[in-house]
């Protein structure tokens, strides 16, 4: 069953590469909706017992111990939902784009990306995971480099080399683990059973950390991120920030922590510290930004830093919080970048100082933006709240001072988010914003779907916890050494 979910986007993608004409976007939307439908169907027949369901295992390369092994547990299911819900929204959000050349390739690449992402989350074999991890990189690179803005080639190449560099280290870590497995296999359980000594664990742990920290990105590996987010086309940025960075977080939870639990005692603290530095650092920069896309980019670093800090504390609450926060952050950041895109399209600028008074002329946009923004600030009853709360609780019980410092990020987040909202929406209209038209039906649809999700998950977070809680605590149990 799982394999069908994997193949659906791939088939649609290959089909789209082949066709020409304007039907491409409709087919892409249809394809992603079918995938979503299938994903929901899987959810409905899925046994929530914390074990892997839809488990499939085929021998792929026998000599090297590589199997095609996939399975879905609670954590994976949340990640699949995130991917497959956001992909149709991202595709829909591109419908009002002015005709770009090679439309069908654009959508084909998005669906190829979806294929890779689903694969990353379902893989239960080291090399398979690595392959999907790299497969996602190729389409997103093409999306950003073909349809991106100024300086796109330089920026995207930096992004590619940076992340590729990190993932090669992950490959090294995987090979190292593999060589120590009892049965010479890349299967998740075999890798988990690998017998490593202290320095070996440290090596695996650090090499995985490098790959995941670059992808997320955690300070100080974030330097590729703001440029890439600003330069990429909006849909590319949404894919990157909404789904792709969760690959890093997911990697930490599934692959890094359980594989080398003893290394945590040696350097885990440092990772918490680095992550917390990153939160404060990114928040402070975000406060000073006038470019709205850059500001959201830095806010993303801050939010992800919080998730990272929570994970590295190895607290049960923080891990549960991280899971729901991944989903919430995906929804919020996609919404925020879409708002930025709407404003940029109309005003032809990203500069906050040139905006103002948009709420007067575009009330619908103002309301929807408000809901998504509040979700990002983690106001109670929005989707950001349960995650941030649990993360902070975890960090606090790990170390009160760490918790206190990380806690300031909530305030800082409110500062920069409200500043964006104030500068853009409130105040007097100026020459630029006087003729600002309110959201179109399409934009309204996309934003309200996101806003509704913000509220639903905010009101009833158990919707997500019910799916993920058991599996996440299972994984956490493996990550803690007795």
């Amino acid at each position, binding site marked *: 069953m799982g394999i069908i979910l994997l193949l659906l986007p791939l088939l649609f993608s290959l089909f789209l590469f082949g066709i020409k004409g304007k039907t491409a976007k409709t087919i892409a939307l249809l394809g992603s909706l079918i995938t979503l439908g299938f994903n929901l169907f899987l959810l409905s027949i899925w046994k929530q017992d914390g074990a892997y369901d839809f488990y499939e295992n085929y021998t792929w*390369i026998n000599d090297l111990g590589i199997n095609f092994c996939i399975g879905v547990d609670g954590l994976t299911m949340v990640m699949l939902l995130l991917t497959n819900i956001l992909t149709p929204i991202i595709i829909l959000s591109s419908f009002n784009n002015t005709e770009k050349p090679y439309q069908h390739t654009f959508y084909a690449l998005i669906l190829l990306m979806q294929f890779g992402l689903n694969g990353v989350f379902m893989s239960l074999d080291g090399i398979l995971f690595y392959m999907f991890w790299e497969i996602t990189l*190729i389409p997103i690179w093409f999306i950003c*480099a073909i349809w991106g803005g100024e300086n796109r*080639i330089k920026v995207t190449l930096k992004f590619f080399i940076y992340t*590729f560099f990190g993932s090669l280290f992950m490959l*090294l870590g995987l*090979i190292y683990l593999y*060589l120590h497995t009892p049965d010479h296999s890349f299967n998740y359980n075999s890798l988990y059973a690998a017998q490593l000594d202290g320095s070996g664990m440290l090596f695996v742990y650090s090499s995985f950390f490098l790959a995941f920290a670059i992808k997320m990105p955690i300070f100080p590996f974030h330097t590729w991120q703001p440029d890439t987010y600003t330069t990429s086309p909006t849909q590319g940025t949404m894919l990157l920030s909404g789904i792709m960075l969760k690959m890093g977080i997911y990697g930490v939870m599934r692959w890094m922590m359980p594989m080398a639990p003893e290394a945590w005692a040696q350097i885990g603290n440092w990772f918490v510290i680095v992550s917390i530095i990153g939160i404060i650092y990114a928040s402070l920069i975000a406060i000073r930004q006038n470019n709205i896309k850059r500001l959201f980019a830095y806010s993303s670093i801050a939010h992800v830093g919080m998730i990272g800090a929570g994970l590295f504390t190895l607290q049960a609450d923080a891990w549960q919080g991280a899971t729901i926060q991944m989903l919430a952050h995906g929804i919020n950041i996609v919404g925020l970048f879409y708002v930025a895109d709407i404003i940029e399209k109309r005003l032809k600028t990203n500069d906050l100082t040139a905006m103002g008074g948009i709420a007067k002329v575009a009330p619908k946009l103002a309301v929807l933006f408000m809901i998504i923004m509040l979700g990002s600030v983690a106001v109670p009853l929005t989707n950001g709240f349960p995650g941030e709360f649990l993360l902070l609780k975890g960090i606090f019980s790990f170390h009160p001072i760490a918790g206190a410092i990380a806690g300031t990020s909530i305030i800082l987040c409110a500062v920069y988010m409200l500043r964006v909202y104030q500068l853009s929406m409130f105040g007097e209209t100026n020459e630029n914003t006087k003729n600002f038209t309110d959201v179109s039906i399409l934009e309204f649809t996309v934003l309200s779907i996101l806003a509704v999700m913000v509220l639903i998950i905010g009101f009833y977070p158990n919707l997500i916890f019910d799916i993920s809680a058991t599996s996440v605590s299972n994984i956490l149990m493996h990550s803690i050494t007795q």
Partner: protein
Amino acid sequence: MVAIIILAFFGVILLFAGIFDMRKSIMPIGVLAIVMALVFTIQDIDGLFNDYTNMFLFDTFARAFTVVCLLSTLLIFLLGAEFLKDDIHHKGDKYALMLFALCGAITMLSAQNLLMIFLGIEILSIPLYILAGSQKDDMHSNEAGMKYFLMGAFATGILLFGMAMIYGATGQIQLSAIWTNIIADSYNHNLMNVGIILLIVAFCFKISAAPFHFWSPDVYDGTPTLFTSFMATVVKTAAFATFFKLFLTCFTEIGSQWTNIVAMIAALSMILANVTAIYQKSFKRMMAYSSISHAGYLLLALISLNFKEGQSAILLYLSAYSMATVAAFTVFTMIQQQTGRSDFEVFNGLGKRKRLLAVTMTIAMLSLAGIPLTAGFFGKYYLFSIAIHQYMPLVIIAILNSAISIYYYFKVIVAMWFKDSENHAITLETSPIYSMVAIVTSIAIIVIGVLPSIVIELFW
């Protein structure tokens, strides 16, 4: 063994074909020779030359690499139909020379004896000196031929000197006998050390590893592109496989004495070549540096001192590398012939004008860079995994270099897909043969990338 006879026989036929005005049939005859040789390589008739096994043994190792060489040559021959179209006088000679070079390659691969290795290297090299300088009216080609010949002759001298030292140290030229003497510790240690170092120098010259690589960018650049691709694939494969076989058959026991030197050469090749490649303006020079860096990666297999795993690793790596190189040169040759330029700008906007070629080139570059689902990934993976135990720092250097190499391989992809061509006036025409080779190589790269075991299981 039968393969050599077939290749040599058809080589002579091709020489005569030029005289008897059979120019149209030259390429088909060449292809026929390769195909027949391929059949006899896979289905070797044993027992025909059993009296000479102490000189020449066409074992699975030799066969596997012979197949790689033959397949690369086959594709290059097909390209020749277009590339050598206007060459009326020497077409047959050039095909014949490539066939003779192949005989040398097979001799090297099957050699059981130092003298046979030497003989093979010479048979391989001499036709190549001629081919490098075959474009007589082009100064660069002349320069390439001259340089290659002088440097090659020098390296051969060193090789022979090294062999003499080994002979002096052990009193043997038989590979297995040398090994026995080393095991029994009945050899002259000083002579042996000098001999091994001279052999390393000579072979590193042949596989163009730093710091013995200085000839290769000039030679690659000046040589007519068709023969550059022959050099980059067949010569590299044969020379490296022989290097590997010679050292891992004879000198494994005293590995500690030479692996450090080879490790340094490997590190130097990777770093120097990758950093220099970034600054290249010409595609051919870039490919030359890329080939140096791949020699560096391959040396990881040599120092792992593990014959069984190592041979699979280099077989996979060399077939991946050969396929990608042939694919890249296919596209490049076609563009170069019609525009007459070899800088990166010629690729601008190729994605919009010739999709098939651009896709092929993209796959080739991704494979050379080692991205998953292309053959290059498993090549790299295999090499890293056999070297990771003893040579972790070296593997990390290799990884850093893989990341650097993205920069210059992707320069081509960037030019093809993200830049617009400034010169729309030149319409590129694709001949069906080029398209065919492009499709075949792309499919081969992807198939090996998805199912690498087919390459290995074919022979072992």
